[in-house]
């Protein structure tokens, strides 16, 4: 029977077992790297660097994981914090999304080949809506879990998901009609 995340975390805590931690990484690397790729707008190298940083921080602070939330939720939170810190350093946080959105909504600058691409539409969303959609729709987190990851109120997450979905629908519908 495969070991659960809780078993693996216990092994890391008790024996400082690198193999157990490697197993945890293998189990969650796809989701974490996927989320970070979306958040970084498909900058694969940056996303993987942030994913490495996420897992290293998780290892360093594993004693602070109390098991109240799922291990994956805890990892998402670290990953989001890593992304946020990096974005702050690069001064690319939140506000820039709005300008990008406006710039890319201009039909002349929109790449026709990407019109039907949902990923492209996602990348046009502001960060707070994109993060909420990615966590709740793509990664299957509940609204409550997403609220913990993003450190925002539950109601805000619900609003962001709803607004994001509406914008996605509108964007995709508009592209479909074009």
């Amino acid at each position, binding site marked *: 029977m495969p070991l659960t995340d809780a078993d693996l975390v216990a092994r890391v805590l008790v024996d*400082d077992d*690198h193999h157990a*931690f*490697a197993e945890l*990484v*293998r189990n969650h*690397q*796809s*989701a974490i*790297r*996927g989320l970070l*790729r979306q958040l970084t707008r498909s900058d694969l190298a940056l996303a*993987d660097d942030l*994913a*490495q940083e996420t*897992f*290293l*921080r*998780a*290892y*360093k*602070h594993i004693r*602070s*994981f109390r098991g109240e939330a799922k291990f994956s939720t*805890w990892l998402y*939170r*670290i990953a989001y*914090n890593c992304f946020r810190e990096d974005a702050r350093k690069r001064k690319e946080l939140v506000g820039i999304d709005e300008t990008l959105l406006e710039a890319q909504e201009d039909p002349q600058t929109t790449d026709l080949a990407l019109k039907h691409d*949902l*990923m492209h539409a*996602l990348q046009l969303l502001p960060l707070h809506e994109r993060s909420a*959609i990615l966590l709740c*729709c*793509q*990664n299957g987190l509940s609204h409550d879990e997403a609220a913990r990851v993003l450190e925002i109120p539950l109601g805000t997450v619900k609003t962001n998901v709803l607004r994001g*979905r509406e914008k*996605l*629908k509108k964007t*995709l*519908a508009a592209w479909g009609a074009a």
Partner: protein
Amino acid sequence: MEEQFQEDWLEARLHEESPYIDDGGFTAQLVQKLPPRRAAGGSFRGAILLCVTLLACVVTYLVSGGGRFLVSAVNDLAAMPLWILYVVAIFCGVVVTAVAASVAYFQARAETLG
């Protein structure tokens, strides 16, 4: 009907768009960056520390003439003016509060990292 179809389509596409990312050496690379494992003799180290501390206590007790320094320290304190005692008490309180606050801050920071 059209609305529901659009909703279902979007939901399905959102889930479609998260394919499994192959590990491709990611885990191996990460494991190499992990700090070295803690030495197995952690409890042994603890025992050594405890023994050394006990030994130091015994030596101090013997050297100080059976703990007479405590009696003389208490006598000195009792002879001190009251205002000095107040100052010492306030200073100790401030130091303890500062240490406790900084420990709480760093602990909370470590927890919010996760």
